């Protein structure tokens, strides 16, 4: 689009004066964009903070249904991917496009591994009925048995006897006498005699939404990396032209940063 003047540096767009100006603008722009990402997740962390402060028992009870080992492995995977991504930047700065390709490939592999493990976790949660909000219908204590008459036909199709949280259509049966803002979940005594706190579903809402949004960011990051990979294959990066790798890496590190907080906040509670 721009007509370069004869002696204009080909790496510099027409409206920049110098390579440095262009590089720093790009970097600054990326950082400002990362600010918006942090605030986006900030809203979710606010959600988390408020409900954890108000219902700590829910978090203590429900977090044990998350698999610490899988979460830990994922943390390590992401840390490794951060390393390789930082290394890719180094390689790009030195113009070693082959190394860039290799490093990004490893990072991509890590991302795939992360999502693969996430998929295993999600699948387990789905099967166990540990789904968010009003879809919450845990199945791990099916034998506890609830009054079948309370179940409405729609949700009964999916799950025979949800013992903890009656589905929403039940509300009219119980409404005025129910348990208040904690909703209608009548923390029933479990067979083993352990008290299940009210509103366990809240934890899983938070879990799904936070990890879900994080997962979407991982996917987006993978898209960016594929684009970088193709460019590196063409040998495009060098000491004068590594801004794209640098910015891609910054984004990936933020994805890592979010997970660094998510892991202890969700998995390591009790």
């Amino acid at each position, binding site marked *: 689009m721009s007509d370069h003047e004869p002696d204009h540096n080909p790496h510099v767009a027409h409206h920049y004066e110098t390579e440095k100006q262009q590089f720093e603008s790009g970097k600054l722009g990326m950082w400002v964009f990362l600010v918006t990402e942090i605030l986006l997740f900030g809203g979710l962390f606010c959600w988390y903070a408020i409900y954890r402060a108000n219902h700590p028992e829910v978090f203590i009870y429900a977090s044990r249904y998350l698999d610490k080992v899988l979460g830990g492995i994922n943390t390590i995977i992401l840390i490794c991917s951060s390393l390789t991504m930082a290394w890719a930047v180094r390689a790009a700065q030195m113009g070693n496009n082959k190394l860039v390709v290799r490093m990004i490939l490893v990072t991509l592999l890590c991302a795939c591994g992360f999502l693969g493990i996430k998929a295993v976790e999600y699948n387990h949660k789905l099967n166990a009925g540990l789904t968010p909000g009003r879809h919450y219908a845990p199945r791990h204590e099916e034998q506890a048995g609830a009054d079948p008459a309370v179940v409405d036909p729609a949700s009964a199709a999916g799950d025979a006897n949800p013992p903890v949280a009656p589905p929403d259509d039940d509300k009219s049966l119980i409404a005025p*006498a129910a348990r208040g803002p904690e909703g209608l979940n009548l923390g029933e005594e479990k067979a083993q005699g352990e008290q299940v706190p009210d509103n366990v579903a809240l934890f899983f809402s938070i879990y799904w939404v936070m990890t879900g949004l994080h997962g979407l960011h991982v996917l987006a990051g993978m898209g960016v990396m594929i684009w970088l990979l193709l460019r590196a294959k063409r040998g495009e990066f060098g000491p004068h032209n590594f801004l794209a790798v640098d910015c891609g890496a910054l984004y990936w590190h933020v994805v890592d940063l979010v997970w660094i907080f998510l892991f202890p906040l969700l998995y390591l509670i009790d």
Partner: protein
Amino acid sequence: MANDMTGISMLAQSDGRFWMPDAASTSAAEVDWVFSFIFWISAFFFALIVFLMLFFVIRYRWRKGQETKAMPNSNLTIEIIWTAIPFLVVATIFWVAFRAYMKLTVPPSNAYEIQVVGQKWKWLFEYPNGWVDDRLHVPGDRAILLTMRSEDIIHSMFIPAFRLKMDVVPGRYSKIWFKATKNGTFDIYCAEYCGTGHSDMTTQIVVHAPGGYERWLREASSLLSPTLRIQDLTDAAALARKIKSGTDPVSEFIRTSLTDAGTAGINAWNGSSEPNDALKALLISEINTILKGASIYDPERFASVTVAAETAALMEKNPEGEDQVQLNRFLLSDAMPDFFTRGPDMVEAGRYIYERKGGCASCHTLDGNANVGPSFLGIYGRSRDLEGGETITVDENYIRQSIIEPQAKVVLGYKDRSVMPTYKGRLSDREIGAIISFMKSAEVTGNEK
């Protein structure tokens, strides 16, 4: 419109105030004071700004050949001054408003508590004795605490004359308090947008003169009560005579059941003059004591009395509580017809619940037009298709179930409309019975088109 009204005076309110409406509570005076305080400060600054602006426009208007007069481009002193002055002004305003707010917010410990329920699109007020009404009645001589909750979404209780507003949020209680300073009727609005009927979610607050509130509450809450009220007496003299000198077993039973005060009162009466109010009240109280006691039925005692079918039917059910009282009243009425009415008018009571206490009218019309819920016109006894394919006849059982479990059997086509909350625990069996009576009445069943 009165023809002598002109200009601004036409826009003023009936009491001559221009800005704030009628002030009828202790907090209104506080708020109005803060309002005027801010108003005059703002008016001053606004006048200053506009005056300067217009003055400059005229004084320094551009004319050919005139140059701008030299002047510095900034001046730290003046900047500090006009930063500091607004700071002081707003700090004062904050403080004044904060103090008034604290008085508004912290209720006195001895406040009289009334529960408020907001629901689409109706306010319901629950009085300490359990009576529920759609208008807020309060005694004028004491602090009132409203404890509010919502049945569905967020509403907001707004009483302009009291300068009060507080959201009513599902899942939590919100509270406001006030002490009225004027007797009369004032508007209540819903100030938080709540859908189709938002602007119809209005009612009134009635501030009673001393004693008036208690009287009103007694009257209102006896609407469905099977006990006897003064106005139920159709022939007080005949009743008194019967008790004083009747020879039938029922009269004798009553005479022997009288309290000492009752016996004394009856004996003091000359037996022929029209009973005065004191005697009437005494009679009512004595009879009510009997009504509230155990069943007065005894085959021997009622041997010569023709027991009505209605009475017999109720007796079959082995009634308890208020129905037991009602049974006693039926029995007494059978024994002494024409002296007092047989009980509250269930159709009228049903209408009251339909319009006010239950708030049915905001969703169910009587004119055949479907609103959020089906119209009640002609619905009783008709068969309706339900969501899910079933067909059902609208009978007493169905009506009762629909009130207690509204989602159990929804009429076809009403699934996606606004959802009716359950009335379980909010309406007594007797009240539901009244609604059914109302729906069975000629007015509501219509003349079968």
